[in-house]
């Protein structure tokens, strides 16, 4: 029955950074990182897009084997296929998540955290000894790990949060049902990401093309089931791909859920913190969660290390994690959520009109900020949206 200090459940970006930062902050502590799948970073349930600035806080993409493609252009597609190009410097990257997640886990291992793959946490309880007893299964054998602090970085299922008594439920309107193919042999700008909106394409979400290389891209969509005509996400994807890329080869396929909700009200309790997708930290507007997961993982890891050193891992002590998160990103998160809600009421006709308005702005002057400003003038119904965003 191993006794340890910090048990991180889930070796995605949140968990790997949590383990890495906890061990780096307090090398004398026993830090273990669990991954139920046979390998870190696989299967990939992700569109793999990430912003440049946030990524660089944790890893350097230039020349890295885990950075598949550098992105310098964003192309929006209106429902009627009108293209709107936006050029910003250093937009971001499309990652190879299998290699990237392995890189982060290697960072954790390099500072001395123990990484265990093929090891699944199946239950958790308190036993009056100040530790969480976590039932763990590895190669068919059950074991109990007794940890001072458990960090739940277990993604959309959020079982650690559930076992700890936190409310991890998601309302149906805040769940994006997603499906994605890796398509080979397609024609698209390999330095650009494409995003298409449309009620018949991806109701309540959007479709994307994120290039992995020349002629290869992650092609997928996310939608809200409440707004569909009864077909599921994969059926919507098949219809869109059949129209846009009928001859393309499907080299890969994945499905999953992206939670577009505000952060869980309480992301901690005695001896427990939850981070990343598990804590509903995905950006509600873009659906991007990798950077937020790493930032939360860093906060959780550092909080765990400091709390154990201070001999206090109580609910009150760990609340510092939640407050640090809310100060770092919580307000922006709420603004993005409100903007998402406002955009839900805008229909295809609006987006088609907006595309035409923006295309009248000279290409070189088409920053996201300018687009918004021009759009406000021509489309007054956007004003309440902007007000909620900027308030």
């Amino acid at each position, binding site marked *: 029955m191993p006794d340890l200090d910090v048990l991180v459940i889930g070796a995605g970006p949140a968990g790997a950074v949590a383990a890495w930062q906890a061990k780096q902050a307090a090398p004398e502590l026993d830090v273990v990182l669990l991954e139920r799948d046979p390998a870190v970073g696989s299967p990939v349930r992700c569109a793999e897009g990430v912003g440049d600035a946030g990524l660089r806080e944790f890893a350097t993409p230039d020349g890295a084997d885990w950075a598949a493609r550098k992105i310098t252009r964003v192309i929006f597609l209106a429902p009627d296929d009108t293209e709107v190009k936006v050029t910003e410097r250093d937009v971001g990257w499309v990652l190879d998540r299998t290699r990237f997640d392995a890189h982060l886990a290697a960072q954790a291992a390099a500072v001395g955290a123990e990484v265990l793959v093929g090891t699944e946490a199946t239950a958790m309880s308190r036993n009056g000894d100040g530790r969480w007893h976590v039932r763990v299964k590895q190669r068919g054998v059950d074991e109990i790990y007794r940890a001072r602090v458990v960090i739940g970085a277990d*993604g959309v299922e959020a079982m650690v949060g559930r076992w700890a008594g936190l409310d991890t439920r998601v309302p149906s309107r805040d769940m994006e049902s997603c499906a994605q193919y890796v398509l080979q042999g397609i024609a698209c700008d390999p330095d650009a990401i494409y995003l298409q909106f449309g009620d018949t394409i991806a109701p309540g979400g959007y479709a994307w093309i994120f290039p992995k290389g020349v002629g290869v891209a992650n092609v997928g969509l996310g939608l809200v089931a409440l707004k569909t005509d009864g077909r599921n996400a994969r059926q919507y994807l098949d219809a869109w791909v059949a129209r846009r890329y009928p001859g393309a080869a499907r080299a890969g396929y994945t499905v999953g859920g992206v939670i577009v909700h505000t952060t869980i009200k309480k992301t901690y309790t005695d001896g427990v913190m939850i981070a990343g997708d598990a804590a509903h930290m995905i950006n509600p507007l873009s659906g991007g969660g990798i950077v937020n997961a790493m930032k939360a993982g860093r906060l959780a890891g550092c909080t765990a290390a400091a709390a154990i050193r201070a001999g206090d891992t109580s609910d009150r002590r760990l609340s510092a994690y939640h407050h640090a998160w809310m100060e770092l990103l919580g307000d922006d998160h709420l603004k993005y959520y409100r903007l998402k809600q406002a955009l839900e009421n805008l229909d295809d006709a609006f987006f088609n009109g907006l595309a035409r308005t923006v295309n009248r702005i000279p290409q070189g002057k088409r920053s996201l900020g300018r687009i918004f400003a021009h759009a406000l003038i021509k489309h007054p119904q956007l004003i309440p949206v902007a007000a909620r965003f900027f308030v």
Partner: protein
Amino acid sequence: MRRVTPAEIAVVDLAVCDRCGLCLPLCPPEALHLELNILTVDRETCTGCEKCIAPCPVGALDMVAYA
């Protein structure tokens, strides 16, 4: 724990289910479990609310009579 026995409960087609876990946080009574790469529905906890059915990206969940 449910108080009313539902007429129908959710059932999963394991040949279609991709084990993505999307359905778990949608379930108000927490009747869905994913362990050892198998999704199960707890027959005695499911209230038949159907919140898991439509959002499944591959349509692996359906309703059947609770017999």
